[in-house]
C-alpha cells in the first residue's frame, strides 16, 4: 500500500517537475507546479506529517500558486522567447542537473542502509507534538517570522503600487 502510493505520487511529482521544465508557457509551468505540490502533500501524509500535508495544500497549492497564476494573468505572460543566453544555459544546465543529481543520489544510495525505512502509520507527528515544540522551544523564531510576514505584506504593497 505504502509502496504503491509512494510510486504513484512520486512519479506524479517527477512528471510534474519535468513538465515544468519542458513547458514554454508560464501558465502550464504553474499548473504542473500545483501537481507537484499536491503530490508532495500526499508524500508528507505517508511520512506521518499530517499537519504539514494540509499546510502544503492550503499554503502552497492554495495561496502561493494562486498568487503566481494571478500575476501570470495580470502581466499577460506569453510564450518564452528563445535568446542567445538560452543556448548557453542549455549547455550548462542539463549536464549540471545530471551531475548534481548523480552526486546527491549516489550519496543517498550508498548510505541507504543507515537511513532505514518508513512504514505506514509507524510514526505520526500530531498537531499537539508540533505545537509543543513550536510554542515552547521555538517561540522567539515563531514571533520573528510573524514580523517577517508583516514586513513582506508592506513591502509587496509598496513595490506593486503605481507611482504617482
Amino acid at each position: 500500500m505504502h509502496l504503491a502510493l509512494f510510486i504513484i505520487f512520486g512519479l506524479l511529482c517527477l512528471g510534474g517537475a519535468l513538465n515544468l521544465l519542458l513547458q514554454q508557457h508560464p501558465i502550464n509551468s504553474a499548473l504542473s507546479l500545483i501537481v507537484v505540490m499536491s503530490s508532495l502533500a500526499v508524500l508528507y501524509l505517508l511520512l506521518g506529517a499530517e499537519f504539514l500535508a494540509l499546510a502544503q495544500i492550503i499554503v502552497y497549492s492554495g495561496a502561493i500558486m494562486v498568487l503566481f497564476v494571478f500575476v501570470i494573468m495580470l502581466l499577460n505572460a506569453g510564450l518564452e522567447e528563445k535568446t542567445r543566453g538560452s543556448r548557453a544555459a542549455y549547455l550548462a544546465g542539463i549536464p549540471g542537473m545530471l551531475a548534481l543529481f548523480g552526486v546527491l543520489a549516489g550519496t543517498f544510495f550508498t548510505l541507504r542502509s543507515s537511513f532505514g525505512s518508513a512504514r505506514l502509520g509507524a510514526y505520526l507527528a500530531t498537531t499537539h507534538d508540533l505545537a509543543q515544540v513550536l510554542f515552547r522551544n521555538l517561540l522567539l523564531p515563531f514571533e520573528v517570522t510573524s514580523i517577517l510576514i508583516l514586513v513582506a505584506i508592506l513591502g509587496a504593497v509598496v513595490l506593486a503600487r503605481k507611482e504617482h
Partner: protein
Amino acid sequence: MSVPIAWYLILSAALFSIGVCAFLIKRNIISIFMSIELMLNAVNLAFVAFANRWHQVNGQIFVFFVMVVAAAEAAVGLAIIIAVFRSRNTLNVDQIDLMKL
C-alpha cells in the same frame, strides 16, 4: 510493506536537480521564480523524510518555517516582478540587464 527513506531522499534530489536546471534554462522571470519554489519543496521533502527517520518533530517545524518564508518571498518577489514589468515592459531576463557590465 515499507519504503526506504533513501527513496524519498533520491526523489527529493531529483526534484531539486530539475529545479536547478529549470532555474538555469528558463528565460521567463516568473518561470525562474517558480523553479525556486520547486527547489524549496524538494528540500522540504528531505526535511520531512529525516523527521520520519529520527522520529523528531523539529524537522517538520523547519518545513513550517520554510513555508512561511516562501510565502513572504513569493509575495515580495511577485511585487518586484510587477514593478520590473511596469518599467521595462518585458518578462525576459535577458532584456533586464541594466546592471550587466
